[in-house]
């Protein structure tokens, strides 16, 4: 069925790579990692192509470095937009030699594109928030007439959410809340205890009607059950079970120190490089080629993809690799670029673009922030609040009823992430009030800093954006990258559904600070367009190759298979037909697993 080979596969170069594979996976993050994992564990021979460098979190993660060991106390810079110790390599809002453009000079009409150039991609630095989409989130148009329904429902994806949670390890609880699905027994790990500020926010949130529950994050609060999980994930496949069981035992549980954004040397949190790739490599079925930029998916005369054309970034030379199936998983927008740059007689406007929709309906998450100071949290006794290196609690959207009744002025919901506590000091001065505008200094300054340390709370609203005709990307007619490959040009516009939602976030947060007996440093904005984060800033880039029930109105079918080229699949967030407030990564992985299962079936049947 699959290519036979007893050779142990591993990291390859253009000259050592095989001529042909069962599947080529473009990209190595959440989508590429999951697709390669599923395919190789079930016996397919896979070549994974990553544009960035090799990266090993076990040896490269700055686990206990303090900020004074870093330049500029580890503050964010254009080189490292999330701070010096953030795991991102070779990327950020700009990648040297790999530009993108915006059609408009107006800031509010621009899209910010965050990329990483490393094995594992953006999974190495992500917040590890692993929320499931709910049933409503797959059928939004049926509920309010806006945007698009997905051609699949929650029930189609639920078994894959279960599997991904068991594989990567997710902490959280089942709270039975509307459109916030519970997980079956055995999927979740216990949540960490709430910090003191989180407990206070929970108590006072209730006064303004906002629920606070444990968040779901991909961090091991205890070791994974290496005996019961592997048979559930790989029934009838003893080799896969053995490899996974062994690998699960090499992942340690969290030791409650260091921020997850740095990556994790003990593999306690999910990154493609800590969870997907080690077992996939252990199968002997995976070859990984790093430092290679795929620029085209060529077709044969029958209209089937033959593999990929890529540029070896070290030498600039061009190479080809062949495969029966090509999986695009380089991020929503990178996939758009690759498809639009793959022009042929059969696909003159780009691969899979007979609908003209490749690049259309790109989405991000609506974001707005807020901060307050809470006197009840001043002068607390010394205690360690590092916890699981990120959030322990959050608020799922709670105003479904009011929204349905049309009382809010915007159609979709948001969830609330918030941070309190006595985090590791860095490049921002600890808060002191400087009463009367007088800059405090001297002996009193130290006393103030001690008193107010840990008494601040910061809220981030994370809301659903509705896809619109004004938010899309296309090939820039002029600009090219370092290798002469045409680059993306973005168009962006928030609608009033998003800007009103952003204003609602700030009003809620200001009320919440007051309910905590706290001090708001300013007034919430009336006009949400003044406080909404720029498009792309939340790094929840999805859409652009949306899935649908009809070939004329979507780019892929319900299996993420392109309508036009049957052996090309999209595994990344590009296929999202809507972008629920839930962080997209868990859904990307669930869909990638489902797509990989489908590919395996189709290969076994000889359909691809």
């Amino acid at each position, binding site marked *: 069925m699959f290519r036979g080979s007893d050779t142990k596969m591993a990291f390859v170069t253009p000259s050592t790579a095989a001529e042909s594979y069962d599947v080529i996976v473009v990209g190595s993050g959440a989508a590429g990692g999951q697709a390669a994992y599923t395919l190789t564990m079930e016996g397919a021979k896979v070549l994974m192509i990553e544009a960035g460098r090799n990266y090993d979190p076990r040896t*490269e*993660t*700055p686990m*206990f*470095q303090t900020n*004074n060991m870093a*330049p*500029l*106390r580890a503050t964010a*810079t*254009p*080189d*490292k937009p999330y701070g*010096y110790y953030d795991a991102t*390599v070779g990327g*950020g*809002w*700009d*990648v*040297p030699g790999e*530009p993108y*453009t*915006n059609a408009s000079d107006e800031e509010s009409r621009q899209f*910010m594109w965050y990329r990483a150039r490393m094995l594992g991609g953006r999974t190495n630095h992500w917040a590890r928030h692993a929320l499931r989409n709910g049933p409503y989130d797959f059928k939004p148009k049926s509920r309010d007439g806006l945007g698009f329904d997905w051609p699949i429902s929650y029930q189609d994806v639920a078994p894959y959410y279960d599997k991904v949670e068991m594989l990567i390890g997710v902490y959280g609880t089942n709270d039975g809340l509307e459109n916030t699905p519970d997980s079956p027994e055995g999927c979740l790990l216990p*949540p*960490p*205890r*709430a910090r*003191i500020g989180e*407990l*206070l926010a929970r*108590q006072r949130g209730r006064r303004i009607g906002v629920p606070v529950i444990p968040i779901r994050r991909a961090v091991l609060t205890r070791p994974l059950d290496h005996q019961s999980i592997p048979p559930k994930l790989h029934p009838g496949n003893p080799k896969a079970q053995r490899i996974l069981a062994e690998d699960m035992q090499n992942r340690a549980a*969290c*030791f*409650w*120190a260091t921020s997850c954004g740095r990556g994790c040397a003990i593999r306690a949190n999910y990154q493609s490089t800590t969870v997907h790739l080690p077992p996939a490599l252990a199968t002997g079925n995976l070859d990984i080629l790093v430092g290679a930029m795929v620029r085209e998916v060529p077709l044969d005369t029958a209209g089937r993809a033959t593999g990929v054309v890529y540029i070896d970034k070290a030498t600039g030379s061009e190479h080809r690799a062949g495969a029966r199936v090509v999986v695009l998983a380089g991020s929503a927008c990178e996939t758009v670029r690759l498809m639009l740059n793959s022009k042929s007689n059969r696909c003159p406007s780009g691969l899979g673009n007979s609908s003209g929709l490749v690049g259309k309906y790109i989405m991000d998450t609506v974001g707005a922030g807020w901060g307050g100071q809470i006197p*009840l949290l001043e002068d607390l*006794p*010394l*205690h*360690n*609040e590092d916890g*699981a290196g990120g959030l322990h609690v959050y608020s799922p959207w709670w105003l479904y009823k009011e929204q349905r009744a049309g009382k809010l002025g915007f159609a979709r919901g948001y969830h609330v992430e918030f941070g309190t506590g*006595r985090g*590791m*000091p860095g490049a921002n*001065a600890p808060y002191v009030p*400087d009463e*009367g*505008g*007088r*800059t*405090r*200094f*001297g002996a009193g*300054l*130290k006393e103030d*800093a*001690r008193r107010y340390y840990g008494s601040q709370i910061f809220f981030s609203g994370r809301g659903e954006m509705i896809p619109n005709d004004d938010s899309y990307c296309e090939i820039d007619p002029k600009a090219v990258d370092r290798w002469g490959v045409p*680059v993306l040009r973005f168009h962006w516009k928030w609608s009033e559904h998003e800007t009103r939602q952003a204003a609602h976030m700030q009003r809620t947060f200001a009320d919440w600070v007051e309910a905590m007996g706290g001090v708001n440093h300013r007034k919430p904005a009336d006009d949400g367009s003044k406080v909404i984060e720029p498009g792309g800033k939340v790094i929840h880039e999805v859409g652009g190759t949306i899935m649908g029930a009809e070939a004329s109105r979507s780019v892929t079918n319900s299996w993420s298979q392109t309508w036009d080229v049957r052996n090309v699949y999209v595994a990344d967030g590009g296929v999202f037909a809507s972008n629920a407030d839930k962080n997209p990564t868990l859904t990307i992985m669930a869909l990638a697993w489902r797509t990989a299962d489908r590919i395996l079936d189709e290969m076994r049947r000889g359909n691809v």
Partner: protein
Amino acid sequence: MSDPRSSGRPLAARMDRRLAIKWMLAASAGALLADPLGLSAAAPGAGPGGYGKDPDLLKEHKPGDYWPLTFSEGVRRDVAALCDIAIPADDRSPSASSLGVHDFIDEWVSAPYAAQAKDRKVILEGLAWVDAQSRKRFGSAFSDATSEQRLSLCGEMAPAAPAGSELEDPSRFFRRFRNLTMAGFFSTPAGMKDLGYVGNVPLPRFEGPPADLVEKLGLTGEVTW
């Protein structure tokens, strides 16, 4: 566009310091990156001389490792004196300069990034003002003035100054300088200890907040997991 840092530094060493600062400020006004978010395709990100997009995160770094520093010996002494007025020693922790915070500030204002270049203008202008006032009033460099003299000058800069007033810029400088001093100080091991940060140590389990604190704040009922 010229880079004020690369061309300013050698000048600062051999020219009259105030003249050099004036020259550098004039240059840096035009050198602030026009595109701080890096949205433009043309913007390559950090200017030359930054630490790049793939630095060795495990290596302990010292000011001056990635880019040359700015302060002459005299300015460095003034900055150390100002740091210690903002954060003096007490029975819990040492002074800011004894932890090298003045070198952190030097690293900060010398950095080839837009946000720091903006601070550079504020800080260097403020330092020049402090130096001029000190020489005029006390007949000496700030670092050689008496502690009463130093305190009185800082006391003048501390209050919020109305826009357009003579003290507007010194006041803005003093706030920014104080905040950089706090950041530099409290992120050192001694500063973190003083502040009460007790994390960054591996633990067998996470216990959550102390039970008596939870009870004191009336939150016992919220502990449901």
